[in-house]
């Protein structure tokens, strides 16, 4: 089984303990933080393993890219500390079992976009931004053959990712893609951060959706009409696995004339959408998730944003209706880009619900 590349010495030398001290959900001082992360590194139990809400953020906070979050999840699994109750864990494990036969493999020999487990959004892959791209995972019945499995980080089941991910990679590779544009941050994080951390080889070049959109927009620059709207961005947990790609959010906004608002909870300080927290085993989790959502949405509202942009469809589903109730339009980044080149309008988005 693939082992985690984790260097305990880096934690001993670290004088920030940012992995834990910057955590939005655990209140901890530097001294305790160092003690606890070293306990975890040594394979000892720690209250952190029980308190962790699995927001992924410590992967970004760590100044040495030492993978504290993957370590925490490994230890959670070793101690049988599953953040979610057993029935939800079983449900999640079953969720991504393919059940409608094998995928139809066509050799593409060109760039592809992988929708992962969001095949139902294939109608979003339209227009000039996606010219020349083939879609893999466009069949809802077979999408779990393309599902990156990283979701199990929320369930204390890292072994399942290590077990299933190589098969998924192999399925994608059979299409002979020259590059794989990942529709969701999580897939990109899986094929870059996670696979690097565990020494899983990836025989194709993953490309982050935002990087791809930015480059396409550069080519379509003449078509762009500045949007002149105030936008907020809901950063998903998996963005923490590829913080260098987070830069593309503002680059795209700049290019299409969207004005990012100043917020308390953005970038490094972004708040989880609450989806994974609401069902956790710890008492009060549902209310905790509601409180996080309230703070997050109020922050967006106070900032004056007219639109809230998403990468993650799960965040979109979780917060979308609540945002609409406050007259803030939720929208996927790809749709926002299509509006900027005149392919669709905000009304289309509002009408489509």
């Amino acid at each position, binding site marked *: 089984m693939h082992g985690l590349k984790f260097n305990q010495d880096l934690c001993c030398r670290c004088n920030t303990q940012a992995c834990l001290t910057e955590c939005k959900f655990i209140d901890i001082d530097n001294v305790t933080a160092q003690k606890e992360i070293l306990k975890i590194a040594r394979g000892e139990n720690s209250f952190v393993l029980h308190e962790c809400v699995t927001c992924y953020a410590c992967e970004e906070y760590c100044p040495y890219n030492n993978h504290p979050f993957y370590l925490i999840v490994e230890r959670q699994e070793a101690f049988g500390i599953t953040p979610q109750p057993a*029935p939800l864990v079983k449900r999640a494990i079953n969720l991504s079992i393919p059940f409608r036969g094998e995928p139809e493999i066509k050799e593409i020999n060109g760039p592809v976009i992988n929708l992962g487990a969001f095949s139902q959004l294939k109608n979003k892959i339209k227009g000039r931004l996606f010219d020349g791209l083939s879609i893999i995972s466009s069949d809802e019945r077979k999408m779990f053959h393309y599902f990156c499995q990283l979701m199990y980080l929320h369930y204390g089941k890292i072994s399942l990712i290590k077990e299933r991910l190589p098969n998924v990679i192999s399925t994608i590779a059979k299409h002979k893609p020259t590059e794989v544009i990942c529709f969701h941050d999580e897939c990109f994080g899986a094929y870059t951060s996670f696979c690097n951390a565990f020494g899983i080889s990836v025989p194709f070049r993953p490309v982050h959706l935002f990087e791809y959109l930015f480059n396409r927009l550069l080519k379509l620059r003449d078509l762009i009409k500045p949007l002149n709207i105030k936008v907020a961005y809901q950063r998903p947990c998996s963005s923490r696995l590829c913080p260098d790609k987070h830069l593309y959010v503002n680059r795209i906004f700049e290019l299409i004339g969207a004005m990012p608002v100043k917020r308390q909870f953005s970038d490094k300080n972004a708040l989880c959408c609450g989806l994974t927290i609401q069902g956790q085993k710890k008492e009060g989790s549902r209310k905790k998730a509601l409180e996080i959502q309230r703070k997050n949405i109020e922050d967006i509202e106070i900032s004056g944003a007219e639109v809230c942009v998403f990468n993650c469809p799960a965040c979109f589903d979780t917060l979308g209706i609540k945002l609409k109730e406050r007259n803030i339009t939720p929208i996927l980044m790809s749709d926002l880009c299509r509006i900027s080149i005149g392919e669709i309008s905000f009304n289309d988005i509002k009408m489509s619900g």
Partner: protein
Amino acid sequence: MDSIYKALCDIVGHEYCSNLPEEIYIYSFDLGTAEPKKPDYVVSPRKVEEIQKIVLLARDKNIPIVPLGGGLSLAGLAVPQKGGIVMDLKRMDSILEVNERARYALIECGVSQGQLISYLKKHHPSLTHSEPGAPPAATIAGNIMIHGQGDLAHPYGFSSDMVLGLEVVLPSGDVIRIGSCALGAGWFTIHPLPDIGLFLGWSGTTGIITKLSIKLFPAKKIRGTGTFVVEDEELIPEIIYKITHTQIPEDIIVYSRAIPPFAKGLHHITVNVAADSEKELEFKQELIWDDTLGEYIKNDLGGYLGFTKDIERPQISKTSDYKKGGGFEYVGGIMPIHTYPQCYRRGREISEKHDIPYTVTARIIGLAHSMMFAWTYAFNRADQETIKKAREALHETDDLVIELGGVIWKPGIYGQRLIMDRLHRETKELMKKIKTLIDPLGIMNPGNWELL
């Protein structure tokens, strides 16, 4: 020309009467596994007077008459077992009155679920009816006739418990009324007159309901569904008992199914909650998910999956996609809640024996006085072998309902026989007398509830 055909055409017009093979064929089957039986004529009346004339003609010629609503019972209840006239009632589709303050709707028998939903949404947004989650073309009257249940079954019971008045054409051709409407008053109550409710649950063997008044209920501004998941089926009866004690939910459904895999071996309890404000909604949610079910979460026995602000109707029909060919039928048993674990386990056994992915669904009725437990079997319409397997599974399930102390809901012919074999002798005798009195020639949907 066939004299009966000509007479029917004289009553409803040529456009609404047929004996053409291609149209007869369409009316010879429903979407379940019942063997097709061809009618001789199909007729679609628009007025009560036309129905009266058709009934008198059928009586005069001594030929069967089979009333048909949406034709979506799946149990073959409107398949003309002995030929005759299928009376398609879909043209009787007027919504005659909605009384906002007394919260009732007076409708004709062909009004569909979809029609009433959209009408209320447009004209009376503060009112709703108990909507069964059937296809929109299913009729209100059909659902009530079979003692169906809708998404307000938890607080208010069976759809037939929501009837406030009926107009019925008897096999004699007479038109009768039941309830306050029989006094020429409004259609607001079925009580307190002597009970002559002889038409619900009889599968159209005692008369043709032409008008009905049904209860409407407050439609709250926010309606949504929360889901709770448990693995141990033995926990379901006590969890349902506790949730129903809150008296908060509008609807409670429990389901488990082999496909998609996320649901296999797990029990998803979906709870519909309605409120007029966020404050009211959160108050209700706190009582259900935190105060009532919190202990199961804490003990690792159950998990809260979230709440969405829309109503996902029961989607049993999705099962039809599990096997190539898109067919499905289910046995619904009206069961005591405590039998849930056995219903689930035995249902899985039957499905697995017949190589059909299992699907079971329970809807809680009337504060857990009972539940409608549905065992669904998918088949390929183009493959007789899979239809045969599904039919066998359905019959075994009918037997199971009886064995577990339940009552088969909207039974097909096989299930009706099982029930009649076990009916209390004097009860059966009374039913025979009633049937003979009302329909002495036995022209009404013969083959169903044949007691003689």
